[in-house]
């Protein structure tokens, strides 16, 4: 059994005042100073924490919003002075896709590296659009268990990147022929380039460090080269240069230390692959394809070519088709590509990487179930640095979340924590499904349930097709 993949983490507290959902407004002027003050009885000890917080306050407008919203103090205060309120700052964070709840849970994971756990049932909507319109399966009593959650058995989250031969030919008991290069990652996740507005000077080293600590790969712009970090030998295996159309290749000796390189789909893909392979025959080349209206078709077309090893399809930040008036969602586009490749008999030959709109660890699992081999993420790592997605990023203007002030250990630590928490949650889902290998999760839609299908099967025959909301 290979060594168990483990990411070393440690708690990294936030730099900024916590933005919680609930706060308690306290009308202190009417306080009777009674001896049975409900504040002392807070089971979460929030009032003492608030006192500590206020006494160490560095910003005048930073209110304390870390209440759990249990209402016990509100209901028991002798004079009824306490009122619970929902924090308007919390509600104003993010947007309709990157909701405040997503931002908050990402912060928590980046701080603690732990899986968010809570009591009571799920309080969210019945179903939603996109990834919220599918559920993952679980294995029940009649199947063998493959549980690895409590350390009894090993669940592998490793995936392979590269072109795989459909069959082997043996001569005298030994496989013959040319084997295309193949690299393995311990987790189906690649760090993608940050959106353009996050052009922070310290971000490159932080991402490199996070990729190295998690033993993953980060796609980087070659303008980052040469790295200023001391240990290039350590970082280069965890880097994949993105070569846009016209971007010159990095020096040969640098490229030879990397394992993956990504190129733009600019019509000269095959020549570029040939050139890169001539510089470094062992490198795996991915082609980045934007998921616009032609994207899925182009991905299917390229996948049929013998020279193509890896296709990286990228939707917009919200997982939508780029530039479309009524955009399709990434999960549907992946299913379309995956299914078409199966029909062409080419699916097992190439690796499909998908990115865009992957905001939560369950999205990673769901994208893989829909047919991708692995995913890329960008924005969650920026949120890990306490970005609030305020959409006020302008050159020369101060960032409200002070992202320009991050230090190396903080940034790399928070990103590492987040990735570790995502890994653990992927294992939770896979453990429940009884799937022991992430490779086997790919395209296994039989182990998922889709809202539209269930609705039609259950209520369709009783009430007719569900009306669109």
């Amino acid at each position: 059994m290979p060594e168990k993949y483990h990411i070393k983490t440690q708690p990294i507290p936030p730099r900024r005042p916590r933005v919680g959902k609930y706060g308690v407004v306290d009308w202190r002027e009417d306080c009777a100073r009674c001896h049975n003050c409900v504040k002392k009885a807070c089971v979460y000890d929030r009032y003492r924490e608030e006192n500590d917080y206020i006494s160490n306050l560095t910003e005048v407008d930073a209110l304390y919003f870390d209440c759990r919203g249990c209402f016990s103090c509100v209901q028991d205060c002798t004079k009824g002075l306490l009122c619970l309120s929902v924090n308007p700052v919390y509600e104003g964070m993010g947007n309709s896709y990157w909701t405040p709840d997503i931002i908050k849970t990402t912060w928590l994971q980046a701080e603690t590296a732990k899986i968010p756990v809570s009591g009571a049932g799920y309080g969210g909507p019945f179903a939603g659009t996109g990834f919220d319109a599918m559920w993952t399966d679980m294995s029940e009593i009649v199947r063998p268990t493959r549980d690895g959650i409590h350390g009894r058995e090993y669940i592998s989250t490793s995936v392979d990147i590269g072109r795989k031969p459909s069959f082997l030919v043996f001569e005298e008991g030994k496989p013959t022929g040319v084997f295309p290069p193949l690299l393995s990652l311990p987790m189906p996740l690649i760090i993608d380039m940050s959106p353009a507005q996050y052009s922070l000077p310290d971000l490159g080293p932080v991402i490199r460090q996070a990729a190295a600590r998690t033993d993953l790969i980060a796609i980087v712009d070659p303008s980052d080269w040469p790295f200023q970090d001391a240990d290039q030998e350590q970082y280069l295996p965890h880097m994949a240069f993105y070569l846009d159309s016209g971007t010159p290749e990095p020096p040969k000796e640098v490229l030879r230390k990397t394992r993956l390189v990504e190129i733009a789909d600019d019509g000269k893909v095959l020549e570029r692959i040939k050139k890169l392979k001539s510089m470094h025959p062992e490198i795996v080349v991915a082609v980045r394809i934007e998921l616009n209206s032609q994207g899925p078709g182009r991905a299917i077309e390229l996948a049929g070519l013998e020279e193509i090893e890896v296709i990286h399809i990228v939707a917009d930040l919200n997982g939508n088709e780029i530039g479309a008036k009524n955009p399709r969602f990434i999960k549907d586009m992946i299913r379309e590509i995956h299914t078409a490749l199966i029909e062409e008999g080419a699916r097992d030959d190439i690796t499909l990487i998908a990115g865009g709109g992957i905001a939560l660890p369950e999205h990673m699992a769901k994208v893989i179930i829909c047919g991708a081999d692995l995913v890329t993420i960008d924005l969650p790592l920026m949120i890990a640095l306490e970005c609030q997605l305020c959409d006020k990023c302008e050159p020369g203007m101060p960032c409200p979340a002070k992202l320009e002030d991050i230090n190396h250990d903080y940034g790399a630590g928070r990103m590492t924590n987040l990735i570790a928490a995502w890994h653990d949650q992927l294992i939770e889902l896979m453990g429940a499904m009884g799937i022991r290998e992430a490779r086997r999760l790919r395209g296994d839609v039989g182990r998922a349930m889709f809202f539209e299908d269930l609705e039609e099967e259950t209520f369709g025959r009783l009430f007719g097709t569900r009306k669109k909301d």
Partner: protein
Amino acid sequence: MVQERKIEEILPANTLKTCVPQAEVAREVKPAPSRFRNEIGKYVVHRSSECIRCGKCAEVCPYGVHVFKPGYKYFASPKDHLCIGTACEKTDHYCVALCPKGALKVAENPMTEGLGDCRWTADMIMATWKMAQTGDVPAEEYGLQYQCGDSGGGFDRLRFKFPDKPPVELDEGQIDTSIELNKRNDGRPKIKIDVPWYGGGMSFGSVSNVTQLSKASAAVAWNTFTCTGEGGYMERMRPYDDHVITQVATGLFGVREETIQRVPIVEFKYAQGAKPGLGGHLLGDKNTVSVARMREAVLGISLFSPFPFHSVYSIEDHMKHIDWIKHVNKRALISTKVSTPTDVDMVAVGSYAAGTHIVHIDGGYGGTGAAPNIAKKNIAMPIEYAIDKVHGFLEAEGVRDNITLIASGGTRYRQGHRPRRRRRCCRHG
């Protein structure tokens, strides 16, 4: 399958029941006011310093919102939760309009924004509080929209379509809500409960002994059952033995020969809807001295009952477990609690084949003491789909009438509970 002998043939009559005198609880509604000083209502009433304490508001308000205690100089805090708010504007007893100094204001309570979620809406929670306090649904004028949640799917989109006039006039006494739990005709007791629900498993540790006893007491009053959850049950529960279900899960916490023998129903918990495929988890802070003693565990450490039963890899293994329980307790009915995977129908029919009396399917929105959020949201199908799937499959297999099907997870109100055409019984999760 070997035909079992009737229970009376196996054991003398005096061993058929628990030896502890059983509690009797009358099924009567008594007011049970809130234990909190400040109840949360849909509206808030604010009295300003303009108040001259003339007492007009207390005089006109029929709901008792304004309290002026004799001998006191000032009004007590208004009982907001009794106020019907803006619905009062059209009446002749609207205190805000009648106050000679204009010292009163009524507004929607902003705190309700922070109460509940889209499953359990604030109105539903407040209405449930009122039902628990009074034994009746809240009066219409309170304007609480409690009939369904706001999740946008499942039970929250199903409505009853009542005819203008009932096709048959029925007295209340002619309506039978009872359910028979043993449909197998295997010689085991024909247990009948008076209402189509019983209390779901909540372990000692996840809840306190007071909660467990309250549930048991209510179960006796309604001639139904309460489930221990996986945490055993204390001696003080013995007088309720005839209405207790002992749960057996992988951790076997609180499972002993005598806790199996005491009760009329034993439940195998294979999975829990809130965390399907992940097993139970009692956080270390909840593992107090008494909980640790009950569970025979070390104080203060997190307790897992890991998923799944490692002694069950097939229906035959499941049958072996059931036979074991049936042998230890000759009068027990067996319930099998499972979650809702894609093949939940196969699981249900397999459980039937193994000899279970009750198949209990627990959907994804059921309660839990602690579960990973990712599991609660994403794993397994909602119960609304699973009920239909299981019922249809059991019917097609011709065994539907030989088994009791119980559904839980996301049932919040009677209309969600009300049996649809094919639903036999529900559980309060």
